[in-house]
């Protein structure tokens, strides 16, 4: 039987990051992936003469080489090399302010630029916005401190260094905005980011929101030149260069135990012996299907129940390859947010109501940032929205193809009405990714790429502080978007690194304690 120190199951963002971290630490690491390509959501697919990016809009906290953000630092630390291209604007949003007046706003990256632009749209907002970004910075520093303390921060340090983070830390974003007396129009514009985490502003922890928005605004975001499959392949290339093994089309069927300690992984390519497994799989799937029932702690059963299987962000996407350029189609911006209202609570409810009430979408055109993304005279665009669980759970196969196109037609219509951009008559290739697609491809519950909704008591900071409490089975840690750092490329890259670090510490402690 092949033997490794660590097996990483699932070569998604968290899995690739964890595998690189383990291999760099000198552990003999095997990365197994159930598909024949790496990346999970970070992949691409080919239709006709086009290669399509399925998921990445912007890799945040990246920045230029001379001012790197954490994401760039991590990837460069791994020694991963590829060409990245800057996305200069944060977003354009065409919607309605919560008072019903029309909204068409384009926000640039860079804190100074962002605040200046906000002052243009909402005169008199500068002072409050500056305060808000100072607060974001403190939150970010505070999280960095808590991360560095490996979940055991010194409360004296927290009180002296990060008092405002502590004051805001337990509240929703909406409450903090109100407390800051941020002008309502600013709040509306800033609420654009809610969908990145899939939790409305009333239930999204401020600390989580602050960390994310700061990362998007402070340094401009980047995308790979040739889809996120280029990035994933570069990650795998580097991992192999370091001596790691990768098996594709290799699916973990179950985890094997010696007593209460993990000792291997059963796969379609045979059993693999190991001391530790990092599983880039939703914990409900791991604990519900892949681990012997008698090993599941009571508390983890309660944790699953308490979460109520409520998943965030069930992806519903459409991809269009057009035989006209972005310019010819009148596409001027990279990303267009097209909610029916800036009120995230209303918008969240409409999404939960399913296709009848959902009119939320994000429209994106890669060629506005990467002119050579597709053959000359063409462009590639995508729509992103979210699906409601019941609707897609109760749908019959024979209605599926028609149903998934209905929502797409609605998104195309919404785009045309709000921007005048009309793709009809130019669509050469297209594909729709429904929650079924994401459920099948990523194996995530209900097609949610966001994991459990990071809302209320189960927010990011609370999870972060309980990394040592959750999922205590010896030698097996879940990683990924359902983990402590929640969803997103950068968050899961960080999560993979962080929990690989925890695994390495466990291994060290066991070997020192003679527990092996």
């Amino acid at each position: 039987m092949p033997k490794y120190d660590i097996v990483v199951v699932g070569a998604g963002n968290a899995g690739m990051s964890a595998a690189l971290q383990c291999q760099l630490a000198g552990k003999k690491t095997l990365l197994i992936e159930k598909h024949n390509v790496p990346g999970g959501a970070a992949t691409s697919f080919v239709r006709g003469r086009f290669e399509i990016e399925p998921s990445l809009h912007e890799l945040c906290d990246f920045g230029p080489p001379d001012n790197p953000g954490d994401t760039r630092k991590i990837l460069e630390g791994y020694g991963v090399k590829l060409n990245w291209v800057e996305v200069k604007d944060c977003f354009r949003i065409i919607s309605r302010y919560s008072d019903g007046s029309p909204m068409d706003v384009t926000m640039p990256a860079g804190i100074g630029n962002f605040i200046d632009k906000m002052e243009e749209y909402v005169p008199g907002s500068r002072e409050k916005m500056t305060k808000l970004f100072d607060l974001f910075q403190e939150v970010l520093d505070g999280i960095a401190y808590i991360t560095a303390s490996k979940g055991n921060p010194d409360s004296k340090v927290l009180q002296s260094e990060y008092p405002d983070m502590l004051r805001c830390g337990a509240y929703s974003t909406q409450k903090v905005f109100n407390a800051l007396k941020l002008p309502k129009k600013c709040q509306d514009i800033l609420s654009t980011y809610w969908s990145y985490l899939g939790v409305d502003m009333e239930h999204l922890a401020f600390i989580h929101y602050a960390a994310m928005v700061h990362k998007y605004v402070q340094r401009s975001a980047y995308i790979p030149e040739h889809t996120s499959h280029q990035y994933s392949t570069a990650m795998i290339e580097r991992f192999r260069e370091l001596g790691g093994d990768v098996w594709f089309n290799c699916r973990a069927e179950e985890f094997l135990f010696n007593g209460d300690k993990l000792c291997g992984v059963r796969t379609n390519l045979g059993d693999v012996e190991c001391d530790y497994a990092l599983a880039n799989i939703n914990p409900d799937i791991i604990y519900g299907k892949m681990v012997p029932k008698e090993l599941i702690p009571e508390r983890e059963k309660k944790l699953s129940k308490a979460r109520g299987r409520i998943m965030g962000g069930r992806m519903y996407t459409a991809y269009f390859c057009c035989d006209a350029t972005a310019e010819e189609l009148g596409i001027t911006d990279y990303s267009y947010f097209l909610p029916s209202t800036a009120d995230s609570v209303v918008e969240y409810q409409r999404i939960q109501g399913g296709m009848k009430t959902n009119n939320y979408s994000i429209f994106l055109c890669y060629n506005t940032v990467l002119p050579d993304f597709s053959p000359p005279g063409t462009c590639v665009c995508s729509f992103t929205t979210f699906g409601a669980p019941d609707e897609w759970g109760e749908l019959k196969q024979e209605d599926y193809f028609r149903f998934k196109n209905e929502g797409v037609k609605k998104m195309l219509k919404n785009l045309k009405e709000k921007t005048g951009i009309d793709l009809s008559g130019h669509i050469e290739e297209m594909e729709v990714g429904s929650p079924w697609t994401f459920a099948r491809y990523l194996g995530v519950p209900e097609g949610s790429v966001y994991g459990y909704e990071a809302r209320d008591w189960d927010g990011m900071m609370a999870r972060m502080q309980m990394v040592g409490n959750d999922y205590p089975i010896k030698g097996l840690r879940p990683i990924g978007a359902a983990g402590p750092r929640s969803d997103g490329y950068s968050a899961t890259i960080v999560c993979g690194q962080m929990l690989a670090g925890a695994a390495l510490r466990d291994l060290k402690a066991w070997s020192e304690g003679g527990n092996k």
Partner: protein
Amino acid sequence: MPDLNIKVGLIGKFDMLKFKNMKKVREKAIQAASADEISGVFPVNENAKALHPDFLELVIDRIIDRGEAQAKTFVLKRADGTPLPYFRAGQYISLKLPMDGSFVTRSYSLCSSPKDALAGEYAITVRANPGGFVADRLLEEKKPGDKVITSGPLGFFYYEDLRDAKNVIGLAGGSGITPFLSMARALADGIEDFNLTLLFGSRNEENILFRGELDELARACPKFKVIHVLSEEEKTGFESGFITADLIRKYAPQEEPFSVFLCGPEAMYKFLKPEIEKLGLPERLFRRKLIDVTKTPWECEGYPQEAKGKAFSVKVKQGPQEWTIPASADEPVLVAIERAGIKAPSRCRAGECGWCRSRLLEGTVFIPQENEMRRWADVHYGYIHPCCSFPTSDLTLEIPGEFF
């Protein structure tokens, strides 16, 4: 850090305590829940798995002989007769056939209606292919009751209302009729909604595959028309000769846009390419079913002629296993892998689906231009699709696993 003085309203002096209590609050919420078994089963995921299975274990229910057309239709069911994954008319399934100790895949378009899948049936039609490795043996050897492993429905050769013109001119040759038959049946069943005018090339009247079915469907369904084009016969009621740009223009709508869908043998593609160019259609209005990889790579542009006919050695790695096998320059490397009895993944065998995507660690291969559908990074980092890559040196290859 300036004092932000945000102690307003709800946010006040207990906030620090609240922050510290986050852990306690979360633990309390967890402990308040009941300790039910974790299920791990989600309806959306079950739906997705049913629609896109890893593979299907089917049984040949019955075989229909197509007589003069030298073909047989195989009706496939599950052993328990339960519904099969629904599909889009025009899609194919890939059969995984054990032959002489090896596994070989072949793709066949489903010729049945998607509706039949709900009743538990798929139908494929196999035409005699003298000298071929698989088709003739399928026709001779397979009997009702035999088991067959297949993929779920695959491929992108189907009508899509957001993309294609409402009027479709179908061009079919020989067994290339099968996806169109499925489309015609779907139109008749009200599953699809477009106008299909099919120009179907056959050698002579006797040789027309599915003659009765097609004519019957055309009578019953106003959205479907069929024009038989005979290459070796002149008869009233038939077009004669080959399908040309002029013939397409004759049957295409004059005022409205139309899409052209093409499915037929390699020779037909070659003949029709310049004819279709004459129509001046934008690329989006022309779709063709994938093209099987050539049997004569040395006739392709850019082929390194010195490799022709040579024998090479290929080191194949799959998970923990490793083999060294012989390979011929004249066949795709996938064929060598299959012949060696290695269970290698493959589906479309035309470079399109990428299911066989493998890492080329050492050596060089030749890939015909019309089968080059790799991702940018795969080309850049040395991944190939073995189904359409011909060895031009000794190779070391890392292939993915299989699930069946």
